[in-house]
Structures are given as structure tokens and as C-alpha cells.
């Protein structure tokens, strides 16, 4: 109950903003700024007027949203796994790190949207190209954070593992990975928001489905409530993904949070 009240207390600004926005846009009557009620109606029209046996979801909803989310998550998971694996190795092997670091710094300095022409030439337009763009664009925060986390493991943890003769595999999974986990999660969180951006951008230029494609489609047909509607969906999607991520982080890193508080 208390939590519900607290959440309500935090969210009171949302209806206030919506009401003010509604009043201002109705008064202004500018076609580029439709009132929220019009946007909501258009969203309903776009996604929720399907047959009841499909939970009223339209073809557009069933095609575009899962396609986008699927590519986003596929790219994010791939980048997370590869970035963590490579980062941990680089973190524990300072010699490799010194050779690879300049390359990493160069690669991550490239604005990922600039890679689109290259990846479009390399792969045909489609999910493969989009996932590649996402992976290449978001892998760096994970990789660099994992390397950082693995490099700064307390010497006494390492000594303990050596004294008790842990094998290489055991050291990796029981020591290096958990010790670097807080850093890895910080990287994954940055990557998640980047993945959303790259998902939309890649769909704007090279796609035949997805939320970004629908946005472009609405814009081309001068359907401004539709444009606003897709933007709202993207915002909600980002918010939901971030909240889910934070919940997962709280579970996985509970030891870290509490250990830091008590010692």
C-alpha cells in the first residue's frame, strides 16, 4: 500500500502535464502538434483495432512491435555476451589490452549511425544488417566496462583463488565474472538505451517493418498523430526496458548493493 502511494506521489506530474498539453494544443490548433487525445486515438487506431481473438492487436502491431523488440534484444544480448567475454579476457591480460586498446578507442569513437551505409552495402537490407549495426554500435560500453571490472579485481581475491588452487575456468566463473558484474551491468545499461536508438535509426533507413519503419510511413503520409503515436510507443518501450533491466540488476547484484552499505 505504502509503495503504491509512493509511486502515485512520484507520478502525479504525468496527468498534470497531459492536461496542460491537451489544453495548450487545443488552443493553438497547430497541425504539427496534435492534442494527446488525438494521438491516443491514432495509436488505438494503429494498433488496437484488430479482431478480438488476437486481443484486438492489428497486423501493424503484431508485425512491427515484435520485429523491433526482437532485433533490439537480439543485438543487445549478442553485444552483451561478446562484449563481456572479450572484455574479461582483455581485463585479465594487460598485454593484450595495451595492443587492443587503441583499436577499441577508435572503433567506439565512430558514431554508430555512420556505419549504416557500410553495413547496408555489406548485408542486404533486413534484420541481419540491423542486428549487426546494433551490435557494433553498443558493444563498446560493455566491453570497456567488463575489461575495467576484470582489471581492478582486488589482489587478495586473486591470491585467495591461487592459494586454494582454483582452475582457470573456476577463476573465471567464480571470481572474475562476479567481481566484474557491477561494472558489466553499468555497461549493459548504457548499451540498452543505445540499442533502442540504433534500432529506430536502422529501421528508418533500411527496413520494411518495425516501429521505425512505421514512423517513417506515418511521416510520409502526413499522418502527424501517427508520428507522435510511434514516438510515444518508443518512449514507453525505453521506459519499460530500463525498468525491467533495473529490476534484474537489483536481483543479480543484491550482494553488491548490500555489501557496499554494510562494510
Amino acid at each position, binding site marked *: 500500500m505504502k509503495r503504491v502511494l509512493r509511486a502515485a506521489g512520484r507520478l502525479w506530474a504525468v496527468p498534470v502535464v497531459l492536461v496542460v498539453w491537451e489544453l495548450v494544443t487545443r488552443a493553438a490548433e497547430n497541425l504539427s502538434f496534435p492534442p494527446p487525445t488525438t494521438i491516443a486515438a491514432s495509436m488505438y487506431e494503429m494498433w488496437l483495432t484488430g479482431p478480438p481473438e488476437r486481443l484486438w492487436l492489428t497486423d501493424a502491431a503484431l508485425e512491427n512491435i515484435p520485429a523491433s523488440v526482437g532485433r533490439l534484444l537480439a543485438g543487445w544480448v549478442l553485444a552483451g555476451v561478446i562484449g563481456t567475454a572479450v572484455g574479461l579476457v582483455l581485463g585479465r591480460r594487460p598485454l593484450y589490452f595495451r595492443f587492443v586498446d587503441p583499436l577499441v578507442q577508435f572503433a567506439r569513437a565512430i558514431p554508430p549511425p555512420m556505419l549504416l551505409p557500410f553495413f547496408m552495402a555489406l548485408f542486404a537490407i533486413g534484420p541481419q544488417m540491423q542486428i549487426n549495426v546494433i551490435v557494433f554500435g553498443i558493444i563498446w560500453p560493455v566491453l570497456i566496462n567488463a575489461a575495467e571490472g576484470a582489471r581492478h579485481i*582486488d589482489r*587478495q*581475491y586473486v*591470491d*585467495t583463488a*591461487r*592459494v*586454494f*588452487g*582454483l*582452475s582457470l575456468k*573456476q577463476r573465471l566463473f*567464480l*571470481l572474475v565474472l*562476479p*567481481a566484474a*558484474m557491477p561494472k558489466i551491468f553499468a555497461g549493459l545499461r548504457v548499451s540498452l538505451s543505445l540499442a533502442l536508438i540504433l534500432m529506430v535509426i536502422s529501421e528508418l533507413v533500411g527496413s520494411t517493418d518495425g516501429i521505425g519503419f512505421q514512423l517513417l510511413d506515418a511521416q510520409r503520409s502526413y499522418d502527424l498523430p501517427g508520428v507522435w503515436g510511434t514516438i510515444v510507443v518508443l518512449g514507453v518501450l525505453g521506459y519499460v526496458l530500463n525498468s525491467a533491466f533495473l529490476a534484474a540488476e537489483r536481483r543479480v547484484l543484491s*550482494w*553488491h548493493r*548490500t*555489501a557496499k552499505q*554494510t*562494510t
Partner: protein
Amino acid sequence: MLEISNLTHTYGSGPSAHNALDGIDLTVAEGELVCIVGPSGCGKSTLLRSIAGLLRPTGGQVVLNGSPVEQTPDNLAVVFQDYSRSLFPWMSVADNVSLPLRRKAMDKKQRKDAALEALEQVGLESAGAKYPWQLSGGMQQRVSIARALAYRPALLLMDEPFGSVDAQTREELEDLTLRVRGHHNMTIVLITHDIDESVYVGDRVVVLSKAPAGIVGDLRVDLPGPRDQITTREHPDFVHLRAEVGRLVRGMRSQPASASQ
């Protein structure tokens, strides 16, 4: 069981080289509890790290049970001073204790039982499911001791094991060490800067000089009966030995009528 001969170690080279150990010769017999005491910064930890195989000394050698120590030997456990950085905070207490058993031929059940038994010996049988950071400092150090006990090492090294706990917990842990040692008949090398502690816990006290560390005294502790925090510490022999060790640590000449051999 442990023979250290002419052990030297120098950090760095050239004019900035720091000579930490200067020809240490020491033999520890099976079942002995030897305390190594010396002023802070004298190279005690370097000595311990060389014995544990965590550091390759620049000269001399360490032989454990007949084989020279080159990498970390598989029959040796260490209790570090800083328990909070030695227990893994992402594992439960029971998992921490059974961690080193993974290298032994034991299945999961056996490892769990061994961990529980070790926790029982240090009086923490109900803490297995907790995390280290949920325990007090003294309890965390007990977990470290339990981890070492579960491992059943031939040699247990303790590096200022009670240096980070309060005085009362310290006494409890000293008695705990004496008790489990009697139970397992382990060989223990305990490093400390606390003179009282070295005499109270040890069968033998080895005194190191300031850096570069060399052995300046090797005294046998012959105190009557089981050790007791009150009566042992007021025993004339204890008082005498403590003074003797204190003089050696401060670099004064030992008096001829002492208990040293």
C-alpha cells in the same frame, strides 16, 4: 615438514631496490604452531607470500613436505588478515567455505557436508546460508578459518589473522585457533606484530628484525597446562617471555638468563 633455507627477497633492482628478506633459515616440525613476530613493515608478509608460493623469492628456497614450493602448493591454506577481501561477497558463507574443496575429488554433497562440519567447529553452524557481509568482522574471520579447516591442509598460514578485530573477539579467535589446532593436529605458522599474542598462541616464537628481515630470536614457549586468557597471561613465565620477545623486537640484546634455546 617446512624447511626454509637462506631465503632472500629483493623488490626491484638498482638503487631503488628494497631488500625485504635477508637469508631466513627456519624449520617447522610437524604439528608445531610457530608464531613469527616482528616490527611492522619488516617483511613478514613477504615471508608468508613466499611460503604460500604467491611470490617467487629472489634467493633461497622453501621446501614443504620434501618438495620445493614453486607454485601455490596444494596442501596449504592461508587465513588472510583482511577477511572482507578474502571471502567472496557474491557467495554464501557455505559456498565460500566449500570453495577450495572443488579441487578435491569430492561431489557436491560431500563438499556441503565438509563445509557444514567446518562451520560447526568455529561455532557458525547456522550461518551457512548467509552472506559474509551479513556477519560481524569476528564471525567473518571465523568463516575464513572454517574455510581453511575444511580444506584440511598440511600447513596453515595465518597472516595477522586477528589484526582487524576488536580485543575481545581477538581473544576468542586466539582460543578458537588453539582449540581447532588441538583437534586437527595441524601445523600452523602464524604471523603477527602482537608480542603478547605470539607468546600466548605459539609453541615457538620466531622474532624477525627490521627490514631486511633476518631471524634475531627463536624461543620455545613452555607454558603449563592449556592456555587460558587470564591465568596464562599472568603466569611469570609468560610475563618473562613477553619481555624477552619485546626486547628482541625492539632490537635490544637478549638477556642471557632467558628461556631461549
